[in-house]
């Protein structure tokens, strides 16, 4: 059922992208030629348009594209002159590592900060964390990225200014540590931004829990501090955190686009921007579909985890 819904969604999305691009005033031939205007005569423009099939009506192009996709071919990217699927797979592996790292950091630290804030409710650690979360929630990703770049890469020289591998080093000589070293700043940027909502929701939920009867009872028995949270709170506050964590796949994607731009990190984000600006439909549609699947996966995992965390949902499934 979920699968059918996903397929329908993808179909609608691809039609929408095709339709929007055909409405956009971007001239793909011009985008393809770019700065080369002076070298390309009109006959040559015609040849380029024909080579890429740009003169056909959008509907015809869409049907041609769709039948190719059903045969497992996403088309050829105009910018990279390579199969779109190949380009996306390559870029996606870079982005995935970055997003995974950021996502883990976000989850762990967001959750911990949220608990900390609730434990110290209305005292200085709580005020500090709340202030931080409010500030960061209204800060654009790229700005945080630039700040980290200036401080840690340019002034202190602790980290490289960008890229995912050391400059001038051959692939065989690049160690895992090198890769991690290059990933820290962009991952940090993403997680600094992302942890704010998780921390705030966890804090609210935990405060609710603290106000409940069973906590009062537990306190009366002498339990307190972190062990109290561990024994009686964790399951209750995990749900909103997990929901947010997995539904944040979409935001993670958007943030990664900007972080990659700042840190010259070769991920899907940069490819998405380029394909949009230059009217590279096969690549653009490919990336849109890919991200839709990615976000849908996040939601599905969250659904499955609910059942694991909250036994009531497992029973609900049996009844329904």
């Amino acid at each position: 059922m979920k699968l059918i819904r996903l397929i329908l969604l993808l179909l609608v999305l691809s039609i929408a992208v095709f339709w929007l691009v055909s409405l956009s005033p971007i001239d793909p031939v011009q985008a393809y030629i770019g700065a080369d205007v002076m070298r390309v005569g009109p006959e040559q423009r015609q040849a380029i348009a024909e080579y890429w099939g740009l003169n056909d009506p959008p509907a015809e192009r869409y049907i041609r594209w769709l039948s190719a996709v059903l045969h497992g071919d996403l088309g050829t990217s105009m910018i990279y002159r390579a199969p779109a699927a190949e380009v996306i797979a390559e870029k996606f592996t870079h982005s995935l590592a970055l997003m995974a790292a950021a996502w883990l950091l976000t989850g762990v630290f967001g959750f911990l900060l949220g608990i900390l804030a609730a434990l110290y409710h209305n005292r200085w650690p709580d005020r500090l964390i709340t202030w931080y979360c409010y500030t960061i929630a209204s800060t654009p990703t790229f700005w945080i990225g630039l700040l980290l770049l200036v401080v840690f890469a340019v002034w202190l020289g602790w980290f490289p200014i960008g890229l995912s591998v050391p400059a001038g080093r051959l692939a065989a000589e690049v160690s895992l540590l090198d890769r991690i070293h290059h990933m820290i700043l962009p991952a940090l940027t993403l997680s600094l931004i992302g942890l704010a909502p998780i921390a705030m929701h966890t804090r609210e939920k935990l405060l609710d829990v603290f106000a409940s009867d069973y906590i009062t009872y537990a306190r009366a028995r002498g339990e307190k501090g972190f062990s109290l949270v561990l024994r009686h709170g964790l399951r209750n506050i995990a749900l909103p955190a997990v929901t947010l964590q997995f539904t944040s796949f979409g935001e993670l994607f958007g943030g990664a686009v900007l972080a990659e731009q700042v840190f010259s990190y070769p991920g899907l984000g940069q490819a998405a921007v380029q394909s949009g600006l230059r009217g590279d439909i096969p690549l653009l549609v490919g990336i849109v579909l890919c991200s839709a699947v990615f976000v849908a996966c996040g939601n599905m995992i969250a659904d499955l985890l609910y059942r694991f965390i909250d036994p009531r949902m497992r029973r609900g499934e049996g009844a329904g």
Partner: protein
Amino acid sequence: MKKLIHISIALILFTFVLLSGCASHPGEAERERGRAEDELILAIGTEPEGGFDPTLGWGRYGSPLFQSTLLKRDHEMRITYDLAADYSLSDDGRLWTVRLREDAKFSDGRPVTAEDVVFTFETAATNGSTIDLSNLKQVRAKGSYEVEFELHEPQSTFITLLISLGIVPKHAYGPNYAGQPIGSGPYQLVQWDRGQQLIVEVNPEYYGEKPFFRRLTFLFLQEDAALAAARAGEVDIAAIPPVYTRTSVPGMKIVDIQTVDNRGIMFPYVPSGRVTEEGYPIGNDVTSDLAIRRAVSVAIDREALVDGILEGYGTPAYTINDQLPWWNPETVFPDGDIEEAKRILAEAGWIDEDGDGIAEREGVRASFTLLYPSNDRTRQSLALTVADMVKPAGIEIIVEGKSWDELKKRMHADAVMFGWGSHDPIEMYYVYSSRYQGVDYFNPGYYSNETVDRYMEQALRAVSEEEAHEYWRQAQWDGETGVSFHGDAAWAWLVNIDHVYLVHEKLDIGRQGIHPHGHGWPITDNIASWRWAE
């Protein structure tokens, strides 16, 4: 409770120790090159995403690096030999014959032959690339080391293709060539991390002068990232926009290179009234008047534009091809002259009678719109400043920023801030020929002048370079007419924008020629002569 705090503090400390342990780059204070003597790291421009296949357009600016070309230009724009040992052109201007040197080899050890040249041109002509070979009728090998090019029509500018198209090996060419190029150029590709960097090393089979630097790494960074990299000591050369020269970077010098990367105002040349096939309006009743065009051109203070907008990194522009071999130096004129502008206007009947500061004639105000691409800050500044400069002369320019797609619809009826600049005189033909009226971006103003057309046709049909240059010069100004200020003043050229680089203070990048439009790769044209200065 306390435990938790201790754990968090320990965690934070641990992270810091880990991070500082990773630190391998010195800060600004102690600037040391962390690489071998014969290695360079450059951040000079954008990535050629399509790869390194000359038949798809790679290497059209600067040398193709991995491949070599038949002919080359030196820093004074003279034509010299590369793969060719000799070339000639038939009297009717339609048959080019090129004899190849016989000692050239590809990096895989196989010789470069006429077959490869034929294959390269045939491939480039058919694979939907940005290389315009529509005038090439046939290319054929005569023996192993001689190639004949037959053209449909004479075209003296065909030589630019012999200069810019890198030769690919027929035996090693395939669908993956763009990612793993093999060629006879000074360097060979070692590794290409898409979206990040390109690592190249000297080609041991190269027949020419061996470059000093064994390994080059090109980083693909945006301009601000390139500046950050230069500040952090991670690169030896970084391409930067002129505004970034305001703060100095320790250990690096600023190198600016003269260009024909120009900006200028295109005027609609014909009166309004017609529309294009797509229904876009053609013509403008104000700019179609010669007096208006000349008054605008003479009122502009070009030196002030260079100093104020380009931080001094540029030169005044008088034509589309300043300083190139086919340039006519007589096109230069004294500018920034408001009185002269007023005189020109008054003589043509443009007088401010209602006292609003703007001249008018027969009920038409001397006012027109100037469009620029809204994402380009340099063009925006130029447009706004020009509007200020011509106002005292009694001309009103309304400045509007638009997208290129919007510009395309309005450029036949409104003035536009364009940029050109090429090492190929065919560009002048595209921009000014009446054959290209309203064709793409070439001659959007519908300029036409029979005499100019005739000179340019003669230039194309010329069988020697010098003869062609003479006709190009006459098309600019022959003493009576021409496209430049003294003649039709069809465009008001403003500035040539220098290409600015931050270069390691000890690095000598040799003698650079005049760069074409497009910042970045042209700097590698003479890479074989780069050295460390003593």
